[in-house]
């Protein structure tokens, strides 16, 4: 199993690397601005404004983790190519169980999740250290990462459901989400004067109730991960109808 996970991560490396580079490119100027706001020209010429600047920058380290999490899309791409190249057929022919073949991709996701969470944690700690302040709360970063994870795992599920043949369907969920949000805001909300304000108030109150927010997020992530994995195994074993011209030789 570990050799196969190494295989997957090695094949994803070229697409993961840019995210790491972007994070570094992002952290370097941010660090320089922070140091300048504490000890340099910004502190000298902006006075109290420097403190406000530090306030606005202190959470930026958390974005590093969120950015690296986006690299999970490489696992979705690898899933598609593994379908199309015959790799999964080879694994099936070797007697490997479907649950293990599918599980491998979700283990890849879990590894990248841990890497991105640790990256966020480290970047956050670095910025806190440079800013001379307590590091920002990583809880919100974890919530955002959890919600993103659900979407990224959905892409992997889609790959299994379509046997790698319909990568275009990956755009459906975000489009549906945006449509639903627009319908809610501009459709329903248009007829209800304070709907937008009321909705935002409810969302903010929910987000301020951190224990509830974390619990709901954790529950959603676990639920959707288990669902995605189970459905992936189901679809992996399900045969799709093969068109005559492609088919059995």
């Amino acid at each position: 199993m570990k050799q196969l996970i190494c295989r997957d991560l090695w094949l994803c490396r070229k697409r993961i690397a840019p995210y790491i580079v972007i994070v570094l490119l992002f952290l370097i100027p941010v660090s320089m601005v922070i140091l300048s706001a504490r000890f340099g020209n910004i502190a000298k010429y902006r006075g109290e404004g420097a403190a406000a600047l530090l306030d606005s920058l202190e959470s930026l380290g958390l974005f590093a983790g969120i950015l690296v999490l986006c690299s999970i899309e490489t696992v979705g791409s690898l899933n598609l190519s593994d379908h199309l190249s015959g790799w999964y057929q080879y694994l099936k022919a070797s007697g490997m169980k479907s649950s293990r073949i599918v599980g491998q991709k979700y283990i890849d996701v879990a590894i990248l999740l841990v890497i991105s969470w640790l990256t966020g944690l480290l970047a956050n700690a670095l910025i806190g250290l440079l800013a001379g302040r307590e590091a920002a709360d990583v809880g919100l970063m974890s919530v955002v990462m959890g919600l993103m994870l659900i979407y990224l795992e959905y892409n992997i599920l889609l790959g299994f459901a379509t046997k790698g043949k319909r990568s275009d369907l990956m755009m459906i969920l975000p489009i549906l989400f945006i449509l639903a949000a627009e319908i809610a805001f501009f459709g329903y909300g248009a007829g209800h004067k304070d709907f937008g304000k009321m909705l935002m108030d409810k969302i903010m109150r929910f987000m301020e109730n951190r224990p509830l927010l974390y619990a709901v997020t954790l529950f959603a992530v676990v639920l959707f991960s288990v669902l995605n994995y189970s459905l992936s195994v189901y679809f992996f074993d399900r045969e799709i109808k093969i068109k005559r011209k492609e088919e059995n030789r």
Partner: protein
Amino acid sequence: MDYENAIEIKDLTKRYDGFTLDKVSFCVPKGSIMGFIGQNGAGKTTTINSLLGIVKPDEGDIKLLGMDVKEHGEEAKKEVAAIFDVLPFNDDLNAAQIGRMLKGIWEEWDDETFKKYMERFQLPLKKKAGDFSKGMKMKLQIAAALSHNAKLLIMDEATTGLDPVVRNEILDIFLEYLQDGERSILMSSHITSDLEHIADMVTFIDKGKLLISGVKDEILENYGMVKCGKEDFGDFAREDYIAARLTDFGAQLLVSDREATAKKHSGMLIEKTTLEEIMLYYVNRDKDSFH
């Protein structure tokens, strides 16, 4: 486990839209090479995919190395190596990485054997598989298949698209593989000349149905091509031949029993035939140019 046949297929049936693999049954004796012949779309890959568990048959029983795949499928497949017409390992990996990766799949993976085959095939270990030619990719697949002590090789169009030199080299490797009498090969192909060269047994399949299965030499001994004039063709009853081709100059008839045909139609020229001709006449028997 002791067994007589490396592969036993009984009434294998698989239904798709517009195509049915219909109650196919045949055996591959231990220690032999079975050539599995049919034109494109005949059902060879469906049969092989059913054997390998890539597709689930609708009906029928399959045994690999004496083990029923429904009950002991995973155990049986540990000693089966599949070779496909395209390299299933990612093009971005080199052979050394592929070897390390396969160690995680096959319990009996032998790195030394893999490296020896790579050396023998003159394949570089550090070059990406995507940069290999088609022949090199096939050799890489074969090297991998022969490196985990498999008792059964199942190949789906493994030599298609390869030049004669490479094909010959590969066929020699397969003959070597069978030397100990404990290993077996099922090889699907529509290149009948390869199978005439190497196979002990042949099975013909067409439109999802089994046509012939038996010892190659016996088939070639029994089948024959009758060549006669158009007038003599009229003496043949329909059940006397498989298919006939009429031209302006005469008729050519494929018969399944040369001896019986010679007795019934004495004086007729009956020549030996080839697997290719047998396949051609069988698959074209319903066409207008055939009778």
